[in-house]
């Protein structure tokens, strides 16, 4: 194999190692970015929706108390806007089912909320429920707490999965960095090896050839540079040897 091929193969190997490591790192980094986006899309959206639902439930609870106290206009106004807010949050949560069993959590919220809503959707002001705080504490508040717990369950499961995903991201970032580190270390080792071979099989023989020529010119000593490889340097050494022999013949003539 010629020197040109050997040197080219060295650079090709180095380039391949770096290129593969680079491509893999880019792949892992883009995956990391996608995972972060997925984390936000999958879990954070559901957590945000759950927070909206809890906010709406708190407002509905206040509205029920206002209605019991006979404040019809303000109570109904708050109730309607809170109900809309809850449905908005619920819609987002229902559309964003990304975790196993998340549907059952969402269905549970619907069932509990429907039961809660059935208590205050009928008129309160002007009926026997107006001023009935026992009805509120026994039925309405209990039902309110049940819906709230079911929404919190949805929030908790998303929180848990988000934490797990975030922990996995650490592993992913490690996977994105490691090819680079391995590529740097292996390239360094390879460079040292390459440099050693260039020194031993290219620079060394050239120095020996130069020395041999020098000795021939000074003392007419026979050219005896030993070349181990079968490449251009061996051809060069053979040519020099022939040239010297020819020179000797010419001189003796």
């Amino acid at each position: 194999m010629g020197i040109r091929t050997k040197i080219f193969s060295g650079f090709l190997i180095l380039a391949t190692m770096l290129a593969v490591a680079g491509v893999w790192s880019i792949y892992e980094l883009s995956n990391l970015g996608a995972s972060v986006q997925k984390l936000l899309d999958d879990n954070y959206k559901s957590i945000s929706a759950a927070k909206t639902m809890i906010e709406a439930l708190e407002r509905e609870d206040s509205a029920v108390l206002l209605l019991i106290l006979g404040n019809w206009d303000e109570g109904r106004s708050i109730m309607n806007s809170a109900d809309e807010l809850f449905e908005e949050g619920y819609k987002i949560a229902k559309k964003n089912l990304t975790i196993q069993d998340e549907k059952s959590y969402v269905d549970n919220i619907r069932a509990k909320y429907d039961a809660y809503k059935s208590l205050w959707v009928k008129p309160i002001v002007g009926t026997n429920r107006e001023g009935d705080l026992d009805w509120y504490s026994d039925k309405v508040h209990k039902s309110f707490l049940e819906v709230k717990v079911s929404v919190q369950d949805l929030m908790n499961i998303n929180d848990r999965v988000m934490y797990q995903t975030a922990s996995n991201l650490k592993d992913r970032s490690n996977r994105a960095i490691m090819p680079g580190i391995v590529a740097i270390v292996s390239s360094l080792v390879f460079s040292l090896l390459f440099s050693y071979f260039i020194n031993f099989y290219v620079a060394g023989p050239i120095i020996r050839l130069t020395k041999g020529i020098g000795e021939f010119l000074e003392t007419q000593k026979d050219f005896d540079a030993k070349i181990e490889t079968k490449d251009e340097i061996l051809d060069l050494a053979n040519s020099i040897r022939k040239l010297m022999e020819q020179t000797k013949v010419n001189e003796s003539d």
Partner: protein
Amino acid sequence: MRPHVIFRYTGFVMLLNGIFMFISVIVSALYSDNSFFPLLYSGIVSTLIGIFPLIFVPPVTDINNREGFFIVVTSWLITCMVGVMPYVLWGGPFTFINAWFESVSGFTTTGSSILSDIEALPMGLLFWRSTTHWIGGIGIIIFVLSVLPYMGRAGMILYRTEISSLATENFHYRTKKTINILFYVYVTLTLLEIILLLFCGMNLFDAITHSFATIATGGFSPKNVSISYYNSPSIEIVIIVFMILSGVHFGLLFGVISGKISQIWKSSIVRYYIFALIAGTIITVMSVRMHNYDTWLESLRYSAFQIISLGTSTGFATADTSIWPSLTQLIMIFFTLQCACAGSTSGGIKVDRVVIFWKSFQKRLIQFRHPRAIVVPKIDKMAIKEDELEMGILYICVYMGVVFISSILLTSLGLDSLSAFSASAATMGNVGPGFGMVGSMSNFGSIPDIGKLILTGTMLLGRLEIFGLIIFFTVRSWK
């Protein structure tokens, strides 16, 4: 010393590692797991760096003993380092130290692990983990030489350095033939065990990985609870048989394969090896029957497996031996130190040296009674030379010294004395599990990083028969 010659031969070893990494890549692709890229990149790096010296350095056959010795030691060290790559690139529990520990443990066929949840590893990586056993079992150099027989004289020198000095005495073949024998016996045993395990109901992946670990007397299992996962007496019997066979001198096994069955029983070393395993099993059965198991059959089943597993330096487990009586644990520590025959894939002091030690003791005893008597100790009618006796005893002393020093160092890191001593003995003998916090159902993950480095040192010392590694790190020998 010609460094380029060493580079050329270690290049072959890296290339071999690369090939097995690519096989693991195929396994990873078949199971569509996430170890595909770590294995692929490791394979590419290993192959490219391995192939480069072959491009530059012309073939060399006239390597001297010193070069042969350095090729073997550097091959072990480089292989262990290359084996780190797939683990580190995959991540998870594998920090650099953990990956180094797992890699050295794999290649030296120790079988100790830092993993608490082995089954969480992707299949490709589990396959690579078992492959490290298989490559290490036969000795990387011998393996390479079997694949590349054209190396001629160079092969003989590498072989002499690689294989235990005791084993070379037992081979009656020329070296090249010996290498082929080792390779054929190794492959035949592996294939036979795979077939029998499949027949016993194990799936193909588990059968291959367990066979790799058994024949190499390694002990890595792809299951968290090792062989006890299957709870199958037939699987246990197959593994017991192959553990015993893997502990016998491969030259004798070749004799059996070639039809000379009686040859194996003529060897006093093998007779002692089998007798010791039977005696150890009987004592253990009686001990655990009284304390741990309700029936004799149950006691025999678990005792035989554990004693043979440790007595062959394999390290598989079917029971938690940490809760077994102290007498049993002491017997198992004895087997952890002794292990199996030279010329097999096992580690430890080796049965041959124990027999030599006993012969030397007998000689002294006779000379005490008859001071003028000339006693020539013999094994199988062959006289043991004085320097062989001395070397055998010296080896045992140094071996115990290393185990003792390693135990002290581990104790200073906060390990209890039983865990420290058994971890040192188990890694030095390339056995795997110890007792206490490194018991058969535990792992080495909780040991501090410095402790893991100490233990990888003892694994390499044990695998390279102590003096090999000491000479390598003695700078003067480089000159």
